[in-house]
């Protein structure tokens, strides 16, 4: 049973560019959340997708956008990259209904470096 997978593993971009990160949820999961983990910090919630719609959003600018596909996989897009966007981007999947507790399964992350 494959867990959460993310691609690419590492990415280097320059300021002003745009980037797309991809996530495939754990088999059977239908909800995908994205988190940003800056160096020395804990993960910060960006947004969550369920039924192909953004269900809730953290305190991130509109430069951060996402998408969920019918197969539940998801993309995170960041436009007009800033140096401060350099971070580990984590995708987490979960099952929206029937879960007794809020366990989200995380992927290994994509390390984004903005130069």
């Amino acid at each position, binding site marked *: 049973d494959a867990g*959460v997978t993310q691609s690419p593993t590492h990415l280097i971009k320059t300021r002003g560019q745009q980037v797309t990160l991809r996530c495939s949820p754990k088999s059977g999961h239908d*909800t995908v*959340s994205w*988190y940003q983990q800056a160096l*020395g*910090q*804990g*993960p*910060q*919630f960006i947004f*969550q997708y*369920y039924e192909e719609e953004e*269900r*809730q959003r*953290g305190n991130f600018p509109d430069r951060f956008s996402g998408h969920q596909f019918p197969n539940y996989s998801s993309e995170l897009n960041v436009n007009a990259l800033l140096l401060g966007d350099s971070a580990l981007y*984590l995708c*987490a999947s*979960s*099952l*929206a209904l029937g*879960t*007794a*507790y*809020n*366990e*989200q*399964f*995380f*992927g*290994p*992350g994509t390390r984004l470096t903005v130069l």
Partner: protein
Amino acid sequence: DQQVKQNSPSLSVQEGRISILNCDYTNSMFDYFLWYKKYPAEGPTFLISISSIKDKNEDGRFTVFLNKSAKHLSLHIVPSQPGDSAVYFCAASLGSNSGYALNFGKGTSLLVTP
């Protein structure tokens, strides 16, 4: 504004002893609390959780204690093993189902020495 705080960036414990990791939170609306463990180059993995209606939850060597009045929780690992060496994140959410975002602390790096 950091709503979940882990004030100890690191902790070193001898193998066989107890490890105690602490976490404080400021939002009294948090209803569910979790601990995640993270190894380098891997995503965080769920360890143990506790609902706000309980004050203790135990799973093998891991026990989480919740003190709602103090807005404080702690993770006890007994006995500690070298394989427990990792970064531990405390997280809190407004509800117990997966529709709620997780609010994480900055993490505590635990080193268990032989």
